[in-house]
């Protein structure tokens, strides 16, 4: 992990303005899409920052997770527009198909389910994101086909 982090900081630089891009890369290199405490400590040490300065950023921003997730993170929008467009049905289908609740990872380590604030796909609500990709206008058939494609 240490070498990878040194390499990441090498490309982004050591000034504090590089902290968010560095943490993004650190989270991405982790197969479970999170930033372990040791990683934050290493980032702090190598960039010459206080550990608290790094933790503070990790815990402030929605993109970062301090706990392990999974290979793919499914983010279900639970803001206003998706709610009035019945996002609850998406949640039910996902929980049922994956056999987990929101906040949990599937047993095969493929998917982690979480809620997200609006990500600007309200025109195709109800919407969800899998990693960076947005899916909208979802119903049961579409959703199952999408999950299947990720399983392969």
């Amino acid at each position, binding site marked *: 992990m240490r070498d990878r982090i040194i390499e990441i900081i090498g490309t982004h630089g050591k*000034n*504090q*303005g*590089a*902290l*968010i*891009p560095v*943490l*993004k890369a650190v989270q991405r290199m982790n197969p479970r899409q999170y930033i372990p405490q040791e990683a934050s400590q290493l980032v702090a040490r190598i960039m010459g920052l206080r550990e608290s*300065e790094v933790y*503070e*950023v990790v815990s*402030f*921003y*929605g*993109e*970062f997770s301090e706990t392990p997730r999974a290979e793919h993170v499914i983010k279900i929008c*639970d*803001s*206003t*527009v998706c*709610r*009035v*467009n019945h996002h609850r049905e998406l949640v039910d289908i996902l929980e049922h198909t994956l056999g987990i609740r929101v906040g949990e990872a599937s047993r095969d380590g493929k998917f982690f389910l979480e809620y*997200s*604030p*609006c*990500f*600007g*796909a*309200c*025109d*195709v*609500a109800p919407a969800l*994101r899998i990693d*960076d*990709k*947005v899916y909208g206008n979802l119903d049961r058939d579409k959703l199952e086909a999408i999950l299947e494609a990720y399983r392969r």
Partner: protein
Amino acid sequence: MKKNVALITENFHHYIPPDLAGYKHFGGFTALKKALALSEEDLIERIEDSGLRGRGGAAYPTGKKMRQSKAYQDDIKYLICNADEGEPGTFKDRDLLEQDPFGVLEGMVITAYAVGATHGILYLREEYAHLLELLQGAMAAMRREGLLGQGILGTALDFDMTIFSGAGAYICGEGTSLIESMEGRPGRPRNKPPYTKAQGLYLKPTLVSNVETFSAITAIVKHPQGVFTGYGTQKSPGTKLISLCGNVNNPGTYEVPFGLTLEEIITELGHGVAGDKGIKFVQVGGISGPLLPRACLKMPLTYEDFDAEGLSIGSGAVLVVDEDTDILDFLDAVAAFFKHESCGKCTPCREGNRQLMNILKRMREGTALPSDPENIQRIAHTMKYASFCGLGKTAPTALLSAIKYCPEEIFMRRGQ
């Protein structure tokens, strides 16, 4: 009045971004050429005369802001395009960046010339990471054609730009929080003054404007004087992008002249409510905006009509909610959002949102206290007047408007 117009959006679907030749074919970068032929002073005057007001929510006159920014000269001056678009119900900036990125970037170069900016940054919200590659491609294409970099189009203008990808925080749409996050800290707003135009990113003069504002600047300079102001009303000239969503048949981004009524927007552009249901309310301006009942839908969308009612057009979101929706459920979604997104810096917002959520929970469960209507007013009042930034100040807006316009629905379940 023509309802759906194409001025700021005139290039949508005409070229496939990031195809720069395609953009040029439709008059791309002629606005920049025209701008560079003007003095900075005349260019700023041109924007002032257009009556353009910032499209990021606060509606500050753009020309005036440029003039103020120009007064702060320094070896480095930053120009930031605010593409944080975190306001739930709003996606028009996403469409601009996706359908016509060059229109936005051209507006940034024009502005850089007008105010003397040296470094541009497009602050892209994390949730729009899927646009990152496209935008990088657009910037690279401009660099190849001498539209970014040293001596742009053979003039003395040196200006280049990069993209900063956010990390997921609504508060980072606020200009100073955005800057804090770029400096590698939590996005908590700074004290003002100093204003960012004097001391912003790395303490250098910084101008922050919204995506749509830059697109509008391009359209204003590109077309002969009077084209932009030919739309809209005397006090609200021009066009506005609307993010129409919720329970409508045809959700999407629409460009409308100011002066259209909400009803026209919903029935004629949105093709009415899905399933022919009745409208319960419409939330205008995003999650920080008020809930307006049917009776208000005849109101024209102009700054002056909204001001007169103590309302704001905000980001231009129009969220239509049908009669099946439980208003308390809706308000719970609003409260949960603000509780989650409060940066925690000041007590009225951090604690106020928490308390409002508790009261809403009691109301939904039918266990509200007799004092709760008064509690709401007291807490909301404190938030509105004592919060440090716009987030806390506007967080109770939806709830207060619901109480004002449909008190029966809100307090119906009290004491059941």
